[in-house]
């Protein structure tokens, strides 16, 4: 947070910081590997949005005559570029549709958990006292669970569906945002410019929205990108274990689970969705890593 080092006139300081920030951003983001990651993520997003247009077949269309055809086989209806699975469904089309669930769950879980966590963490940091103690003990309790075990237990309670999976990730992952934003608020609450703003008669609401939120948002954005990578992986893992998204929806996790039964004869069923999952998570982590470097005043972009 570059602004933190320039006290007092936060607003004007922020304005004069802008050109330097942009060049830091450019320095980090114009690297080939980061550009590649951004391109890959955009590509997956576009594929997910246009799934009905670009998928060569209905992802749930079974065709038992064509089952377990290897990649590049001419099946009855079309050329199966990535082969077919044990029910004759087109692997490419299922991989394309599967990207929708991964992105949807990742995005919504991060937005909901992030909003909840930041709100609670800021309350705890700003008001302190009993609310703070209660919330932080709750955070301790939730952090003492192994994450996958906790998610498994909650999905088992709620039942499997896309909405429930997002709900599970929201109630299990808000804690890290709460911790981070609480720590930021505690650090910012007593800075000179907040004290000055309060002395000048600024309301709590104004102090929070004008002075605290803009100065704490960077670590939250970095955290959110790493959380997104982790949640996308965990959703696929839960679905793989049979307790995530129901099998009627094409998902990468379920495809890998199907493919696990046919490793000897049909490696492509598990290989392609796994590869896509890996590439998606990889590109999100690369972007997260780049953002961390942009926002960390101590790192020097090369």
């Amino acid at each position, binding site marked *: 947070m570059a602004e933190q080092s320039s006290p007092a006139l936060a607003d004007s300081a922020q304005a004069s910081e802008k050109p330097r920030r942009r060049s830091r951003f450019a320095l980090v983001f114009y690297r080939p590997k980061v550009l590649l990651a951004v391109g890959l993520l955009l590509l997956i997003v576009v594929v997910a949005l246009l799934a009905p247009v670009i998928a060569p077949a209905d992802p749930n269309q079974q065709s038992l005559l064509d089952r377990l055809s290897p990649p590049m086989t001419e099946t009855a209806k079309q050329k199966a570029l990535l082969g077919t699975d044990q029910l004759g469904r087109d692997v490419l089309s299922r991989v394309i549709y599967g990207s929708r669930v991964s992105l949807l769950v990742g995005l919504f879980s991060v937005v909901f958990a992030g909003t909840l966590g930041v709100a609670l963490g800021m309350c705890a940091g700003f008001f302190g006292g009993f609310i703070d103690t209660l919330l932080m003990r709750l955070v301790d309790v939730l952090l003492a669970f192994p994450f996958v075990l906790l998610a498994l*237990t909650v999905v088992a309670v709620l039942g499997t569906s896309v909405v429930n999976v997002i709900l599970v990730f929201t109630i299990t992952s808000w804690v890290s945002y709460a911790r981070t934003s609480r720590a930021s608020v505690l650090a910012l609450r007593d800075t000179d410019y907040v004290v000055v703003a309060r002395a000048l008669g600024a309301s709590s609401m104004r102090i929070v929205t004008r002075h605290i939120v803009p100065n704490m948002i960077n670590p939250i954005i970095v955290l959110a990108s790493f959380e997104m990578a982790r949640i996308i992986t965990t959703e696929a893992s839960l679905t793989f*274990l049979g307790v995530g998204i129901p099998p009627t929806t094409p998902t990468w996790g379920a495809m890998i689970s199907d493919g696990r039964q046919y490793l000897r004869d049909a490696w492509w069923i598990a290989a392609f969705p*796994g590869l896509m999952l*890996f590439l998606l998570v*990889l590109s999100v982590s690369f972007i997260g890593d780049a953002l961390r470097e942009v926002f960390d005043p101590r790192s020097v972009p*090369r």
Partner: protein
Amino acid sequence: MSSNFLVSRVLQSLVVLAGLTFLVFALVRVVPGDPVRLLLGDQATPEQIEQTRKDFGLDESIIVQYGYFLGDIARGDLGTSLRQRQPVTDLIRDALPSTLKLALASIGLSVGIGVPLGILTAVKRGSAIDSVVMSATLFGQALPTFWWGIVLITIFSVSLRWFPTSGSGGWEHLVLPAVTLSTYVLALIVRLTRSAMVEVLTQDYVRTARAKGLSERVVLFGHALRNAAIPIVTIIGLQFGNLIGGAVITETVFAWPGIGLLALNAINSRDYPLLQAIVLLSAVTFLTINLIIDLLYSMLDPRIRHG
């Protein structure tokens, strides 16, 4: 370190533990699906169902059941598995060695390779080897465990036939699950060791140590590593705690008969007492490790004084 600090840390952990037991207890009781029906099957008569319910104490109110639950824990009795009709402590005792073996192997692998690699990249930061290793760690952290396990099975078991596909037994059974499980932790330890060492290596006392003519080896391992040790020890401890309770995915992929597989089976068969006991066990492990880490801090860094 004062005894006051120790007492207050233990008390804090107990408060967290109390909250946790209640959460777990409440959570598993709102699971839809009647465990007694699942257990007895469709053929059971209402009388049989009623009797079984009474046997397990499921006819009492939730609060009474929680009271019994706490009392039993205090006596070391964690209940009887609904599915297997055995004390859950026995089931856990049978599964624990497998999980410990797997956790120790993968932590050993991660630390043994990760810490030296982290030091190397910190010393040679900015070099080609640094950027290759750092990119590799991002790859390692992005690999979905369950898929990575399957890829390893496809290559090393199905095609090359070097290792068995699943189960436990001799050391050859341990190799693939341990590699699968350690990939993420290894990457994490490399990154953390590197950043901790980079931080320390720019400090004045390291420059002083070099200036007074100490060998690079003494500077690195005597001065730098010792001061970089706290974050490294923390992450090793936390990851170990995670592996004890959280190796569900790896254990499932490799049919490794440990706590993780036991937990998944408990969830699928709505085996409350077993699930409760496992969650409790992992939480206690986690809290204990956290406590040990906190105490280790003051040994590693005399500047940290707990008041």
